[in-house]
């Protein structure tokens, strides 16, 4: 007989531990170990001549109640996740650090592409004729670089909402992350030109300034695109909770 999944055996314990801030990897492993232990206990009870259903009931009793199992885990101070202990740090600093890393990568690629494909151009932005084919290596290279720069905030936003969903955190925290990401993304401006430095090596500068209404709309768009999957998950969770309550 196939072994039931840990989530199906201990759904209430899982939710309780996640909401209390236990790191998801510890919750996952705990439930897997309890499931294995339960299977061993059931087999042991069956060897004493009990039927499967009676053995399963006796095994559950030996394993401990949901309260006992939850309290045992909550009493361990080292298994709480960082996002539960310091959400303000995780959801305000991490997205900005990740975004900075992605943009640094993108600007390095821009600098390299400028050097490789347009060595004589004063700036890599819009000074060369449009490529004849989309698949031209130079075009592919710069489009990839643009994709990293412009899709980066959304990817980081999805990471932050996934982190919040995994830990069952309040919606406030992913909203803080996405608001910061939207703000920085909408106000970021990249400037690149060779004239700025006399030696002609080229200069790339990233500045932040809010100068038009379009930027606000862009910030809102980034926020909504990154928030949409989280919102759908949240609605689905609410629906599941309501249907579980109705069934009970």
């Amino acid at each position, binding site marked *: 007989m196939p072994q039931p999944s840990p989530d199906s055996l201990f759904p209430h314990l899982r939710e309780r531990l996640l909401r209390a801030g236990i790191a998801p990897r510890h919750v996952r492993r705990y439930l897997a170990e309890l499931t294995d232990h339960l299977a061993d206990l059931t087999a042991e009870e069956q060897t004493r001549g009990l039927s499967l259903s009676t053995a399963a009931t006796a095994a559950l009793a*030996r394993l401990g109640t*949901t309260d006992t199992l939850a309290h045992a885990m909550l009493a*361990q101070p080292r298994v709480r996740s960082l996002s539960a202990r310091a959400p303000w740090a995780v959801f305000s600093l991490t997205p900005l650090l990740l975004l900075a890393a992605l943009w640094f990568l993108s600007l390095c690629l821009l600098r390299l592409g400028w050097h490789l494909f347009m060595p004589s151009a004063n700036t890599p932005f819009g000074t060369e004729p449009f490529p004849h084919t989309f698949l031209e290596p130079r075009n592919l290279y710069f489009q990839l670089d643009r994709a990293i720069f412009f899709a980066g905030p959304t990817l980081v936003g999805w990471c932050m909402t996934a982190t919040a969903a995994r830990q069952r955190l309040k919606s406030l925290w992913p909203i803080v992350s996405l608001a910061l990401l939207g703000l920085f993304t909408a106000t970021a401006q990249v400037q690149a030109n060779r004239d700025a430095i006399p030696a002609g090596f080229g200069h790339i500068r990233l500045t932040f300034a809010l100068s038009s209404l379009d930027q606000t709309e862009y910030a809102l768009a980034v926020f909504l695109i990154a928030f949409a999957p989280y919102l759908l998950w949240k609605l689905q969770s609410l629906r599941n909770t309501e249907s579980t309550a109705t069934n009970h």
Partner: protein
Amino acid sequence: MASRDTNPNFMNGVPELLILTLLQQGEMYGYELVQAIRDRTGAFIALGEGVVYPVLHNLERDGALTAQRKAVNGRSRIYYSLTPIGSRRLSDLAATWTNLTTAIQFVLTGTPDGAPHAPTLS
């Protein structure tokens, strides 16, 4: 789930001590550990069997244990084994426990080794 009588009073630190002692003899997984605790204590120490895992996770986070997943007889099991940090922790805990039991014994019987009072002549 139905409940089962356990003896939570006086149990602070006991599961940790028992687990470290048993793992000193070789790696084990959770079910094996609980069986071993029951066998070695004559079933006197009755834990809710699932509560052993949070203690194992915490000891692992402290570096006292290492965990390794192994496939045995078609089942995936997580085996725990003692580290040098765990050995030192076991020595400390065992010494503390010995001192504690000696002190309690002294309070209960009036002598450190548990021997009854020698009658005094008046």
